[in-house]
């Protein structure tokens, strides 16, 4: 829990940095590079979490990895958090950063799970509906979930739009169980 709070604070600082910068997309792009690298490499994750390896060694490793690929600002940021011994929450910081970035750009990430494969026409239609519902740009990620039996479930932030057959069956079950059938 306290990790989340700390990550949020660092991410807000990064966000402020991005907004002030001459080329905000560059910084965002650099951070995406770092995030991808962390996601891809188990060793890198272990390195971040390890308390045994010294600060200086970690800084050297990060320079070697990222010097040619990303700009000075982000590298300085990584050095700063290593100094503060907060490199273990770097993945959370990056996750929070991208959430804030989405909010800043007015983009909403939507996770859609469908029971059957949607055709691209259907996907476009759903995306349009979601855009009009959220009044923001949407970045939809589609996935398959046969347990829904039919329809789809769209998660927009905290809100869930549940149009699945499974949910309808659940509602029907609880309605019949609670004696609605005795009403005439």
């Amino acid at each position, binding site marked *: 829990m306290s990790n989340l709070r700390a990550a949020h604070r660092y991410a807000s600082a990064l966000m402020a940095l991005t907004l002030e910068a001459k080329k905000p997309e560059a910084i965002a792009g650099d951070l995406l590079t770092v995030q991808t690298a962390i996601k891809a490499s188990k060793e890198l994750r272990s390195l971040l979490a390890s308390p045994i390896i010294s600060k200086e060694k970690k800084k050297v490793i990060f320079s070697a990895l990222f010097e040619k690929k990303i700009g000075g600002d982000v590298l300085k940021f990584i050095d700063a958090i290593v100094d503060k011994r907060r490199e273990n929450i770097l993945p959370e910081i990056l996750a929070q950063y991208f959430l804030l970035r989405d909010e800043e750009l007015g983009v909403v990430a939507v996770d859609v799970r469908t029971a059957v494969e949607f055709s691209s026409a259907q996907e476009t239609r759903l995306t349009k509906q979601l855009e009009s519902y959220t009044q923001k740009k949407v970045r939809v990620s589609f996935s398959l979930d046969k347990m829904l039996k039919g329809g789809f479930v769209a998660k927009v932030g*905290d809100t869930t739009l549940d149009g699945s057959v499974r949910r309808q069956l659940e509602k029907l079950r609880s309605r019949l169980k609670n004696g609605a059938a005795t009403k005439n």
Partner: protein
Amino acid sequence: MAEVRPDEITAVLRKQLSGFEKEIDIYDVGTVLQVGDGIARLYGLSKVMASELIEFPHDVFGMVLNLEEDNVGCVLFGDDTKIKEGDTVKRTKRVASMPVGEAMLGRVINPLGQPIDGRGNIKTDKFSPLERKALGVIQRQPVKQPLQTGLKAVDGMIPIGRGQRELIIGDRQTGKTAVALDTIINQKYTHSEKAKKEGVKPVYCIYVAIGQKGSTVAQVVTKLEEMGAMDYTTIISATASDPAPLQFIAPYAGATLGEFFRDSGRDVLVVYDDLSKHAAAYRQVSLLLRRPPGREAYPGDVFYLHSRLLERASKLSDELGGGSLTALPIIETQAGDVAAYIPTNVISITDGQIFLEPNLFNSGVRPAINVGISVSRVGGNAQIKGMKKVAGRLRLDLAQYRELEAFAKFGSDLDKATQQQLRRGSHLVEVLKQRQYVPMSIESQVVMIFLGTSGFLDELPLDQVQQFEKEFLAMLELRHKDLLDTIAEKKELTDEISKNIQSMAKEFIETFKG
């Protein structure tokens, strides 16, 4: 037995299914970060309101109490062993509320409004929020009508009015619940035709059991059913094995149901048994939610916990229907310590208290009310004229008796006046004794107190006073019912009637002694 034909079944099912619309369900969700000890911390739920009901998997409900920067603290109204980390929880968009309606009368329910007496579902139309701001000054009027408890000691010297809050406080096993139960049983009379003619409105009762033994609650239910009191009573039960959050909201559920009756112009009595356990349950919930502890580890707002509950007891103005909600909170003290934290809090909130003492109880004075320190701040305004007249001297005589009690050991070494005071006092104490579950009508009380204070009983030996009372009242009921009815109707003891009673009592004593 009538047979249900297959096509009837099909018809009903088809009707139910056809009325079922297919629409997208929109709900807000969160994830469980941490669960344990009846508390859950949730992530997400950015739009949740404070005190909102949350639905967990496996039909468990919870209430949001802590809204923090990165998580939401929630108490669970059910078993937390089935909830896992990572489970999805849904908002119900409903601030904690319970179903209210006429159908609640005669039932035993839990604080969420679900029946636990095994007699089927309760059909209600309305949901009322558990927490409601109490009424302001303009919407109220002063308390004027009496709420008869049926106990001579209470109705004579510590009268309770409709809309008042009277605290019943004492050590364990001193008869606190007994006083409350007798009051509930005595309200049976208010639902009769006779009461209507006398202008007495019916009183509905709600008994809230907080943290008690299940067996005790079962005994209460049985007793009330036996005395025919369940028809106008609802019992809300959160026993000791129920989770602390349920015990915490139980009194508010009682107040909510009471407000439903009050707002429809009727009079309600709510008994909170007992608030000490309620404070302990709230302390448990607060400490688990990591709220800072204060004195005796109670959270800082434990006074507000009880004050907002008891402020909902009121007498409404005539424009709003003239209904009332009377509260009888019960507090258990430890070793008679009324200066402890919770007792002093509740004493300062209520409009008076009835002190029950173990010494009195053990020496046979039951109800074990210490009249000296018991008080009702509504007082004479809540008594009928007749009772006010005869009970006027009662307090004074008893006070003087208590002062002299220590000298009673000297017996005949005292002067005549003192002996007379002692004799009068001891007889009055005998008159005020009463058995459990036999609440007396107000007219019988007036008669007995009149005889006591005017000295007619002084010549009887002490151990025969109770017997005399029983037989004399039985005789009046049988042969002079009209006398009692007149007192009840006129609500006072006219000179004519008092002369009548005096002569009858004289006669009766002669036959009694012989």
